[in-house]
């Protein structure tokens, strides 16, 4: 079985598991009293956000190591992680406003957390454009690595933005120095959903990495 086929199976498994998370979120997790059913968007929005952060941190690490080691596998992994991270960022940026409308009364506000997340999405889109625009493989990998490091710096800013600036967006309730402020049933559903998003991330990256490898082999014979 090739890496792409393994990735495909992981994605199919992840999608089935996402169905399981929906069942758990809807039937076995309590409804939040003040937000109603819309609060359950939390179980897809937050795992997608954390997986985006994970994807960009791995992109940054691969980029740093590429600049030292010049191993093309690191560049291909960075390319794959950036694209998959952009897809998860799209989920964050669409589920966020759908959750925000009934709770905040507005789809969007230009505060630090939301604006910097949108900026991250455009940065990841720009990363793909850059890779398409530079034809020299070595230059492309170097430029992309620098942009990948910029993206990981932005992720740090996004995570801290709710502490640094006044914002409608709530502060972290799980990824914070103190204990998660969430009932056990809700926390378990969140952790399961995060596990599913990680499975999907791995499956997508494996497929995207295989495409990048095949493209490189075609170019270099």
């Amino acid at each position, binding site marked *: 079985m090739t890496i792409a086929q393994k990735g495909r199976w992981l*994605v199919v498994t992840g999608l089935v598991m996402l169905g399981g998370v929906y069942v758990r979120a809807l039937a076995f997790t309590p409804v939040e009293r003040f937000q109603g059913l819309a609060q359950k968007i939390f179980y897809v929005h937050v795992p997608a956000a954390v997986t985006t952060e994970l994807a960009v941190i791995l992109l940054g690490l691969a980029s740093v190591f590429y600049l030292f080691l010049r191993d093309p596998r690191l560049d291909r992994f960075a390319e794959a992680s950036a694209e998959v991270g952009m897809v998860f960022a*799209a989920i964050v940026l669409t589920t966020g406003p759908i959750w925000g409308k009934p709770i905040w009364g507005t789809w969007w506000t230009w505060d630090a957390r939301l604006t910097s997340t949108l900026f991250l999405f455009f940065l990841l889109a720009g990363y793909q454009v850059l890779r398409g625009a530079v034809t020299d493989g070595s230059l492309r990998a170097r430029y992309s690595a620098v942009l990948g490091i910029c993206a990981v710096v932005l992720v740090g800013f996004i995570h801290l933005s709710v502490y640094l600036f006044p914002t409608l967006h709530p502060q972290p309730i799980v990824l914070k120095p103190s204990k998660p402020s969430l009932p056990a049933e809700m926390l378990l559903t969140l952790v399961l959903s995060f596990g599913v998003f990680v499975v999907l991330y791995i499956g997508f990256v494996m497929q995207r990495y295989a*495409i990048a490898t095949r493209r490189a082999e075609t170019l270099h014979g």
Partner: protein
Amino acid sequence: MDNSIPQNAGYLIAAYILVPTILIAYAVSLYRRSLRP
């Protein structure tokens, strides 16, 4: 004081349909790109 839970299931349904739609669209995109020579 109104203690009723807000009725906003439509937003939840929209989000829960949107997420697998984006994921499946990307999975199909990857599959189609993998078939290209």
